[in-house]
């Protein structure tokens, strides 16, 4: 059985390609598995021009998704908001594109600093997904249990997905594609905003349907990682730890410093990753 990691990256207003190089280097270092990239020609040309060597096992070239989403992203504690473009509506194609029998799909802003995910390669579940994120500053206000809507289903995070190639898992990815195509309908049914396509929501709905509409959980769960939202930014980088400064959203004059050591981290502030890409690449 072959196993490996898969990362999608399509450059837009954000340099997702460089993020993917970093994420791949860290995944390869800490998990010891090959990492492949799914990307478009322009993005691949761009990273080839920026990095002496690329940490990818394979680079799978596809067309950039035609559907582009936009959203505002805060750049750390400055509270400066930027409209960014993201092209990730093709995550459901991971099943067909992966070169591995057992695949870990990660977002390009998911930085792996531990081997915790290695425990799941032999898991009996054919499909595992992250059930939540641990936001250290939001715990008292909003725990790891995120929801699509108070009366609807809990949100799963497509940030990390591990799957094997089986007919049942193929069904899930096909279902995600169907939900993407009929997104407005499912947004109405599951009571979330149809404004922007989100892989998280599509996978959440697909897993809910696969569970017999909530009667028996079908998917397996990956560990809940630490999340630093876009009100946080990297303040210091050392070989074994990242230090973040974060703004308290409930008390704007308060700031927190926190260290994250040997922990996998989901860093939503892409500006901060890219501003520190050289230092971060030294950790690879």
């Amino acid at each position, binding site marked *: 059985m072959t196993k490996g990691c898969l990362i999608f990256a399509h450059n837009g207003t954000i340099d997702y390609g460089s993020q993917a190089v970093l994420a791949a280097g860290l995944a390869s270092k800490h998990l010891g598995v090959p990492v492949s990239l799914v990307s478009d020609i322009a993005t691949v040309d761009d990273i080839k021009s920026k990095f002496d060597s690329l940490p990818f096992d394979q680079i799978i070239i596809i067309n950039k998704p035609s559907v582009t989403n936009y959203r505002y992203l805060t750049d750390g504690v400055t509270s400066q908001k930027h409209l960014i473009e993201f092209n990730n509506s093709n995550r459901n194609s991971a099943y067909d594109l992966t070169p591995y029998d057992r695949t870990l799909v990660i977002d390009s802003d998911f930085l792996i600093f531990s081997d915790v995910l290695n425990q799941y390669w032999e898991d009996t579940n054919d499909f595992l997904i992250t059930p939540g994120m641990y936001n250290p500053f939001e715990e008292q206000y909003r725990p790891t249990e995120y929801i699509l809507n*108070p*009366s609807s289903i809990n949100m799963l995070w497509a940030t990390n997905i591990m799957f094997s190639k089986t007919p049942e898992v193929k069904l899930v990815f096909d279902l995600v594609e169907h939900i993407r195509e009929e997104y407005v309908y499912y947004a109405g049914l599951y009571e979330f905003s149809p404004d922007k396509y989100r892989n998280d929501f599509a996978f959440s709905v697909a897993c809910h349907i696969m569970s017999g509409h909530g009667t028996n959980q079908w998917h397996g769960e990956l560990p809940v990682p630490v999340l630093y939202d876009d009100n946080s930014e990297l303040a210091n980088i050392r070989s074994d730890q990242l230090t973040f400064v974060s703004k308290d959203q409930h008390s704007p004059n308060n700031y927190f410093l926190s260290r994250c050591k040997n922990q996998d981290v989901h860093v939503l502030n892409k500006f901060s990753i890219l501003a520190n890409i050289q230092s971060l690449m030294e950790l690879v």
Partner: protein
Amino acid sequence: MSRGYLLFALNTDSTDYVKLAHACALSIKITQPDGYNKVALVTNTPVDESAFDIVIPYIGPLGMDARSRAYDYTPFDETILLDADMLFLKDMSHYWSLVDSKDLFVTTAPQTYKSKLITNYGHYRKLFAENKWPNVYNAWTYFRKADISNQFFSLVKTITDNPAEFIDAIIPGCGLNTIPTDEAFALALIILDIVDDATNPDWQFPRITHMKPAVQLWDSYISDWNEKLRFSLDTKGQIKIGVWQQTELLHYVKKELITDEIIDTLKDAL
């Protein structure tokens, strides 16, 4: 040895309880196998529905406390007393054998429509919480013909028929004028010292999906859950609340849900 479900349906100006009981009986016929699907209805209204195996005329006080007469009215050796505003969604016949070592058993396992057990007393049960009463729900009560069951229902009847005396003696200043059936059940179990025999919080069955809005773990309170969540019934008699498939005993609370169309759909499913 006969066994069956017992429903009380005493119509009021605002609610057609017979219609609710009819829906409940149909859901029992759809989901429960032969030998476990007998339904007896106690009512003061003429009824001509084949979903009821036995219709028993009711003579006595009106209102919720009619259920205190369950022991007197039941035609069965083993009875499960139900609220009328409930629907069966799966085979629950195995519960009979799980409780048949007992003379009396009252469920304490309510859950939300998302199948989360309601482990605390909750918004509606301040009196239970303050007095640490057993968290019983009379909506599913098993009893067999036995002395202790007879004593229990006699005491429940005494409590509900004489609320002032019990309120003054046990819960003075609670603000109640009557003692609702769940409260009366809890008091009777305590007075007879049979709480541990007749309840078992560790069992977590049978689960009742309780649709009172304030127990749904929502951020804000609304008076009608159906304003927030769709109620859908399919042609096989299966129900979704919002996007959640329901499988446990559904205590839908909102009486207006049971329309003639719902009854017809359940009949077709049967």
